[in-house]
């Protein structure tokens, strides 16, 4: 019904539409409030990042980006992301399979454990790894004697990031696989597929949207994690600074414009992520639309 161009409505029609739609005044009031809210909490913060980044001109912006410390921070962030995301995808698939395809005791506890990082303060997450692997921690002495560095080195950053990001893929997949049930898998089995083939040809394609969405969120968080990484990083310039930590450092070095310049790269990444997600959804919606169309045609 929303497809009727509004201007075609006569006064009488508008009046009688009142039954199931808000009056234009209420409608536009709501839209205005919603737009104002999203202006303050979505648009302005976004635009401000770029405005501040270019506040001192393009040269400052470009210099901040090509500074070796920025580049090494980017390299570290990419490395951490490249390690964490595949592991978390693997975990997400395994956990979702185990949880949705089987019944076992303690399932809801398991699900709660998977949710845990969502509400645990990243600082606490970092602290936990310091307690384990720090020099004063349980394994600290032992690791130090063997020259194995975890805290204040890449492994610690990876662990902290893993902790913070591991629920994303699993959390996307579990509801989708739950809703889909096991019918498809069972019919694949009756057709002679083995477990691996069933997973590869039947389960994976049917959850690919959720998997992609979860992966995108996971990447975003890996790149952007601050609190947990801050605790375990050691802040060695050019070595254990990730991009968000580098932004903080620049900000503290009176280089506001440079801080925002590097931040703008992160914001740009966020925007790309959103664009990718929107595109995927749009594509999916189009496919679904085709399905509905086909269904309508099939009906007598």
């Amino acid at each position, binding site marked *: 019904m929303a497809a009727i161009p509004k201007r075609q409505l006569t006064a009488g029609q508008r009046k009688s539409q009142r039954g199931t739609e808000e009056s234009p005044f209420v409608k536009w009031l709501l839209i205005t409030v919603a737009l104002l809210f999203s202006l303050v909490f979505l648009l302005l913060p976004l635009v401000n990042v770029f405005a501040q980044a270019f506040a001192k001109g393009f040269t400052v912006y470009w210099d901040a980006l090509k500074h070796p410390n920025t580049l090494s921070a980017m390299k570290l962030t990419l490395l951490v992301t490249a*390690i964490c995301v595949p592991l978390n995808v693997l975990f997400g698939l395994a956990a979702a399979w185990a949880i949705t395809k089987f019944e076992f005791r303690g399932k809801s506890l398991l699900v709660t454990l998977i949710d845990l990082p969502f509400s645990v303060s990243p600082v606490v997450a970092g602290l936990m790894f310091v307690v384990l692997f720090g020099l004063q921690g349980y394994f600290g002495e032992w690791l130090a004697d063997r020259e194995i560095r975890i805290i204040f080195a*890449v*492994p610690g950053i990876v662990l902290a990031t893993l902790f913070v990001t591991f629920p994303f893929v699993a959390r996307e997949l579990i509801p989708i696989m739950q809703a889909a049930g096991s019918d498809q898998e069972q019919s694949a089995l009756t057709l002679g597929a083995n477990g*691996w083939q069933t997973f590869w040809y039947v389960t994976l394609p049917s959850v690919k949207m959720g998997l992609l969405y979860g992966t995108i969120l996971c990447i975003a968080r890996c790149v952007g994690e601050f609190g947990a990484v801050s605790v375990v990083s050691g802040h060695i310039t050019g070595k254990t600074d990730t991009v968000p930590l580098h932004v903080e450092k620049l900000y503290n*070095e*009176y280089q506001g414009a440079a801080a925002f310049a590097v931040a703008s790269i992160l914001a740009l990444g966020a925007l790309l992520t959103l664009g990718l997600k929107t595109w995927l959804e749009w594509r999916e919606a189009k496919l679904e639309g085709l399905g509905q169309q086909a269904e309508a045609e099939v009906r007598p």
Partner: protein
Amino acid sequence: MQLPPHLNKLLLLAALTLFTAGAATAKDIKLLNVSYDPTRELYQDFNVAFAKHWQTKTGDKVTVQQSHGGSGKQARSVIDGLEADVVTLALAYDIDAIAEKGRLLPKDWQSRLPHNSAPYTSTIVFLVRKGNPKGIKDWSDLVKRGVGIIPANPKTSGAARWTYLAAWGYALKQNNGDEARAREFVAKFYQNVPVFDTGARGATTTFIQRGIGDVLVGWENEAFLALKEQPKGGYELVVPSVSILAEPPVTFVDKVVKRRGTTDVAKGYLDYLYSDEGQEIAARNYYRPRSAAVAAKFADKFPKLQLFTIDEVFGGWQQATKAHFADGGHFDQIQRR
């Protein structure tokens, strides 16, 4: 069920990266200097000079890596295993903590280098907004109503502790050593604080970039740097009549240098701080040099004021910490009111 081979490889790779990325591989020497916030610029200059000096002297190539943060936080990282060859912190107390809680160096570390292991000093001064609209000249002006002071948090920041002690010392002097009056003064002082940052650098940021407060109270070198970085920013330096002689100490971390085999270069690094070149670099970066010759050369750069030391007024760091900064100490009591 078997994992496909490519997946296996991926897992292996991930595991390998995870556990080997931290292991040192470089042949040439790498030194990690864990320092506090305001020394970034100082050590950026100094590291270049030292690398040159060390190469001519021994032929080895040294790369000095830096880590900066609040002094307390940095010490905590070293205690937790951040492999610092050299620590250059704001307070002797923080290095004491490394000795005590981390047992990474001997307790008498401070006597290993001249001048209490503090190759350069600084003091606490004021930075006000252009034209000094609140008319601030000395400590007594800071406790007036409506003045916003930006110091850092004495619980976590070295500069802030020096600031606290400077204010206390000033009040003692004004009141002929009356502890109660001094406490009253310092309490009033902290009532005028709108924002506490954990580190000196954070406080400067708050004052300059966020535009909060009327007076930044902190490191002299930090104030100079702020003036230099913000030439048209509109700030003025105000030097009080009396302040504290802040002695940021440096030392090497015995356990780390021993394990890493960097004892010589670490010692050389610290010694170089005491050399004329080192002293000049410090002076250029607004740290007061210990060397009389260098000090004379930069005499016009540093304002003259009466300076007292922590030993004179408070009987040393351990005493001062116990009385003022420990949980339930004077600072907590002032805060609680």
